[in-house]
């Protein structure tokens, strides 16, 4: 086996994995903190990708700068969805299942809106640096992947530090660990939940741009992305941001290595097969679930 090729596919896997991590972190948070399994999480990511595509095509805006538009927009949209759709279902007996059905509906509506606006054609983010490559010794780094990697790494770290270092972030963790006590000390649960949901969905938008750097996408792409989200949460532990980040990297590396050494048809088979094995050995995931 060729060492350079192994290291090269590790690099490529880590770069892909960081994007899965950013896409998955918010999904993990809404699941852990709010007990909402947001099936439409990846769909919001896809909206981020399409917004990046349109802003690039019409204004020549770099996909990373498009986040200045899409992140606040998705945050605001998520707050509205939380207020008018999620809050009513929190009174349901089984919030998790009800939330899945509700957000499944949201995903279908959004997918069809995207089909109307952007048509079913597959899209690519074609920037000035799409075909540029950074070469370091025997290794090469494709610029779009490098951009996606840096953006995702920064995104995950920002969310991590938000939860660990800011007052509002700590309140999110407190509300998750002890909802009653959090309220007794002045934390407004509904407001904190809305902020959590908003941040999760906005980070999905950024993750979607990262995915668009890696793959072509169409309005149906979120269905496959969603499966990666579940993998990230199951391996990384529900609500665990750093766990999700590591899970993303692991999945990326498995995919990267199998892409290099196996026929394409085997890649998903191996990725999902290995994760099933992980689940059989460690049913609670590799990491503890915690915010």
């Amino acid at each position: 086996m060729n060492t350079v090729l192994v290291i090269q596919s590790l690099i490529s896997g880590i770069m892909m994995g960081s994007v899965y991590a950013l896409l998955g972190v918010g999904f993990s948070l809404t699941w852990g903190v709010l007990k909402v399994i947001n099936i439409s999480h990846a769909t919001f990511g896809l909206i981020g990708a399409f917004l990046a595509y349109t802003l690039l095509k019409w204004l020549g805006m770099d996909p990373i700068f498009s986040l200045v538009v899409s992140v606040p927009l998705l945050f605001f949209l998520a707050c509205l969805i939380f207020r008018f759709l999620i809050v009513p279902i929190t009174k349901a007996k089984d919030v998790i299942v009800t939330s899945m059905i509700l957000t499944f509906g949201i995903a279908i509506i959004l997918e069809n809106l995207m089909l109307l606006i952007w048509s079913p054609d597959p899209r690519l983010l074609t920037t000035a640096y799409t075909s540029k490559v950074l070469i370091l010794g025997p290794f090469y780094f494709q610029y779009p992947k490098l951009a996606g990697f840096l953006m995702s790494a920064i995104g995950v770290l920002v969310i991590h530090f938000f939860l660990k270092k800011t007052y509002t972030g700590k309140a999110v963790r407190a509300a998750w660990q002890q909802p009653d006590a959090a309220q007794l000390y002045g934390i407004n649960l509904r407001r904190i939940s809305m902020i959590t949901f908003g941040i999760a969905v906005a980070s999905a938008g950024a993750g979607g741009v990262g995915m668009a750097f890696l793959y072509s996408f169409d309005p149906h792409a979120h269905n496959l992305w969603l499966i990666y989200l579940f993998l990230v949460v199951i391996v990384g532990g529900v609500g665990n941001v750093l766990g999700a980040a590591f899970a993303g990297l692991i999945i990326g590396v498995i995919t990267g290595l199998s892409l290099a050494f196996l026929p394409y048809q085997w890649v998903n088979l191996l990725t999902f097969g290995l994760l099933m094995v992980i689940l059989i050995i460690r049913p609670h995931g590799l990491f503890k679930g915690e915010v």
Partner: protein
Amino acid sequence: MLSVNDLIVLYQKLRALRGVSLEVAEGDLVALIGSNGSGKTTLLNSISGLIPAGAGRIMWQGTPILGMSPDNICREGIIQVPEGRKLFAQMTVEENLEMGAYLPAARAEADQSRQMAFDIFPRLAERRRQTAGSLSGGEQQMVAVARAIMAKPKLLMLDEPSLGLSPLFAAEIFQTIKELNNRDITVLLISQEVLQTLTISNYAYVMENGEIILNGPAKELLDDPRIKESYLGL
């Protein structure tokens, strides 16, 4: 300061509280005693806004607070140390204290409050970077009280602060409560440690089956034959 009038709380169609009335004056240390399931915790949680009341009135400094959300009741300065402590177990001692001072008014004075809490519980200063869940029961209770101190309480309500603690720790907690009261914090104390509770309190209420069956100055209740028989085992 706080007055509860004819409070009725239904819990799964059962009457958990059947017309409870109670007064706490400013600067007072009032005890609420009674056996398990008599409704003490329910009363505290209705005052804190965690449980909706069926009927009755709760007045706080002249304004009704029944129906207000728990975070707004906290804003009013009514702070509860809940039963079982309910610490943020995966957060450090310091972060737990920080969350106690979550509201802007308390946050502005967080440094002084933290100093006061560490003066009262020097041990917590040593353990400040440990997660709350890793501490012993007694230390966790200290964190729970310290977190409440951070919230700048006008009325401090404690629910069974000595539960599960060694006698030594329990005595220390009761002494701390008395000390906080001496520092102008009004206290409403729930406890099954009847002797110690009545010893430090000025006034006491006895609850049974969701009703106040007895009330009076704590010293008089200590001599009451019914208290002696049912709660002190004399």
